[in-house]
């Protein structure tokens, strides 16, 4: 049901980290320097200013051409939760979902930069429906994205789909919790992976940005509440990822790498940051983009309890390293990206940025990250009073 990843590998991105056992890694010591540049832009809305803003940001990162020309590019978007669910009357794209205009503009610019094929990916909430149909359920017209460039397609990665098998990605140093993941082969059959996320807080991880976005890549057939016991259940793509991933109350399909057992493994605020770090290290992200133009504070979706609010930071972020990009984004939200458990936004959970750094996936240390475009002080939009 699986095959080893044969595309771009973690080793090629993080060679120093890959050579060392996890326990011997000093924090941030092995982060790739050139990947630590992050671009920030002010963008007031999803109108005419959006595409020029993104173009300028990509130019500040060295341009898209070298990254995507003649390549297959996979774009993982964030469509978390039910398509029928809204924060009050606020459309999902103005609160919890990556806005379709940002997806469309990114597709357009990647297409203009010479990508051979572009795939928009998401493990859409509780369903194996085609991703286009999921978007229609949200009230979006997917044609606006499909027509933004040549050779664009969409794949719901909750299932194996058209591929013969799942692709396996092993976590460097055995990972914190998961030594590897079996995920849809579209994540292997691509040259460039883009994580197109939303700027949000998160109930169990503190923040959800380009790293946490990848949690939705885990297929429901293996990691979902109705996953097969021994093998992926291709008819079981319903429900969430609460039982296996959040709670650890059962294991993923036996055919996939099994998580480690031990202290803390039954606490979702211990588990989830580690899963996010493991995923980030196992399947490298080449380009992180964070939509913070309109978003929400207080959680990752309308289902969270507490001080949820639709907000308008008017920000876009992009970077070539997900840990660094998310660190800058975390700082833009008014938090310390190096904060340990006990400090906002990580009051009751571990900091997935630090955990990912331990795996050599990048640096969250702002002193080691070059910021282009809008300066950090000008970009801060406190998510909490």
């Amino acid at each position, binding site marked *: 049901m699986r095959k080893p990843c044969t595309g771009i590998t973690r080793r090629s991105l993080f060679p120093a980290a890959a050579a060392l056992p996890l326990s011997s890694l000093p924090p941030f010591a092995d982060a790739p320097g050139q990947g630590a540049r992050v671009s920030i832009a002010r963008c007031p809305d999803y109108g005419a200013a959006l595409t020029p803003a993104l173009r300028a940001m990509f130019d500040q990162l060295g341009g898209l051409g070298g990254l995507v020309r003649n390549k297959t590019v996979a774009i993982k978007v964030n469509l978390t939760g039910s398509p029928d669910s809204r924060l009050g009357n606020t459309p999902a794209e103005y609160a919890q979902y990556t806005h379709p205009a940002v997806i469309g503009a990114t597709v357009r610019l990647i297409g203009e930069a010479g990508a051979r094929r572009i795939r928009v990916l998401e493990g859409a909430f509780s369903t194996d429906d085609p991703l286009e149909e999921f978007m229609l359920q949200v009230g979006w017209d997917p044609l606006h994205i499909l027509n933004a460039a040549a050779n664009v397609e969409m794949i719901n990665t909750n299932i194996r789909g058209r591929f013969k098998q799942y692709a396996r990605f092993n976590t460097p140093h055995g990972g914190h919790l998961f030594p590897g993941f079996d995920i849809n082969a579209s994540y292997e059959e691509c040259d460039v992976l883009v994580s197109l996320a939303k700027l949000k807080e998160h109930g169990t991880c503190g923040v959800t940005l380009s790293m946490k976005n990848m949690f939705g890549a885990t297929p429901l057939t293996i990691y979902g509440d109705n996953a097969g016991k021994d093998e992926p259940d291709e008819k079981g793509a319903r429900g969430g990822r609460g039982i296996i991933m959040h709670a650890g109350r059962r294991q993923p399909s036996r055919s996939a790498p099994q998580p480690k057992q031990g202290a803390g493994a039954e606490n979702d605020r211990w588990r989830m940051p580690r899963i996010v770090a493991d995923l980030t290290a196992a399947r490298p992200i080449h380009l992180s983009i964070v939509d913070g133009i309109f978003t929400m504070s207080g959680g990752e979706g*309308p289902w969270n309890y507490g001080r949820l609010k639709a907000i308008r930071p008017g920000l876009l972020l992009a970077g070539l390293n997900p840990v660094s990009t998310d660190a800058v984004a975390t700082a833009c939200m008014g938090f310390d990206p190096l904060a340990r458990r006990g400090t906002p936004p990580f009051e009751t959970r571990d900091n997935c940025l630090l955990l990912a750094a331990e795996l050599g996936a990048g640096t969250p240390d702002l002193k080691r990250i070059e910021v282009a475009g809008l300066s950090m002080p000008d970009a801060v939009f406190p998510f909490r009073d």
Partner: protein
Amino acid sequence: MLPPSGWVPFEWPATWTNPSLLRHLEGGPLNCILLSSNEQSAIREAASGRFDIPQIAWRKSSELNWKSPGQVAAIGDAVWPELARRSRESNGSMEAGPTGAPWLDANGWLILMARFRAGSVPVWIRSESPENADQLQLANYRLAIAEAGAYGATRPLWLAPTLASGIASGNDFALATWAKLLNELRWHQARREYSAWPGFGRLLILTAFSGANEYNATEVLNLSARRNLSFRLADPGDLPPAQLQGIQSVLYVDAEPLPQPAAAALRRFVEAGGLLLCMKQPAGTLGALRPSAELHPRFDLFQAGKGRVAISRGAWDDQWVLAQDAHLLMSRRHDAVRLFNGSSLLFHHSVSPDGRRWLVQLLNYSAHDSASNVTLQTWARLASARILLPELAPAPLEIHRETGASELYIPRFSTYAAVELELQDHA
């Protein structure tokens, strides 16, 4: 005294033995009394001449003689409408239906089927007393009244024993509940013309409801309704071209070959751009089809003219999957309205006879929680919108224009709200 279509019936409680209790009906909307036994002869005598007192033969829907149902097509095995009780009692969390959303016990599909099969005969529904009868709240009764009315049927007003005895003994709370129920009935009665508006749907479900096909057909209706997938119904033995107007997709449920006139009409429908879903055997009557490059896990796809034919590879043994396939092969692109924050809601969509207005009736099956922050979205261009809530005057709704769509923010409501939309463009 009145034709059956004018009856507003009340199931006289068995414990109401005193004819003086008829005073509770005087001047109200109830004009028809259903007596449960001959022992209520004193009531019959006192009510005679003031109220209609028909004898209704209630039948299971599967046992009704649809060709000759009687004065009314009286379905006795409807469900008590609510968020499925078992859903709320398992560890306090909801039990999901096949959709992943909480399961709703609902009768809309049953009423639509009954109205289609009974022709011009009024459709009545009733249910056995629910297990939790004495815990029913005003919202439960309101939903029962509104659900039947929204889909164009009649549910005789029934009272749980505790409420009935409370009214009889003059309990203030019971009397206040009774007054509210009568007001609710009055409000719906005043809007009965809406029930004559034909249902809106871009999916046509084609079935004769015969023999072994009946189960498949009724389950598909039930599960399509749970998806809020609006449909219309037609009989393969009677498929005039007008039945296919405005239709995007036809689901022929039955296993038998199509009658020749229907096959010819469907061939023309497909060639003009429509989608037909059917089993293998009936597909043989459609003539030559070109294989399509499109792949589907459960259907072989073919082309004819501008349209498509989807032929099921296997038997239809999972009607939820069939309803899902029908919906997705047609595409949600053709959903005329979408609801947000409406997991406990179903809606009935109908259109005015002149085609200028839509009516979307929203029913909240959760008696415990009001429907709040509900948004109705449509891609149709709207000139205006207004909301109708029981006991309140109609009020205009602001139209929020989003990219390519219009959205209406529905005010918080308990069990029922109707939204009337005036279209800018209409067929």
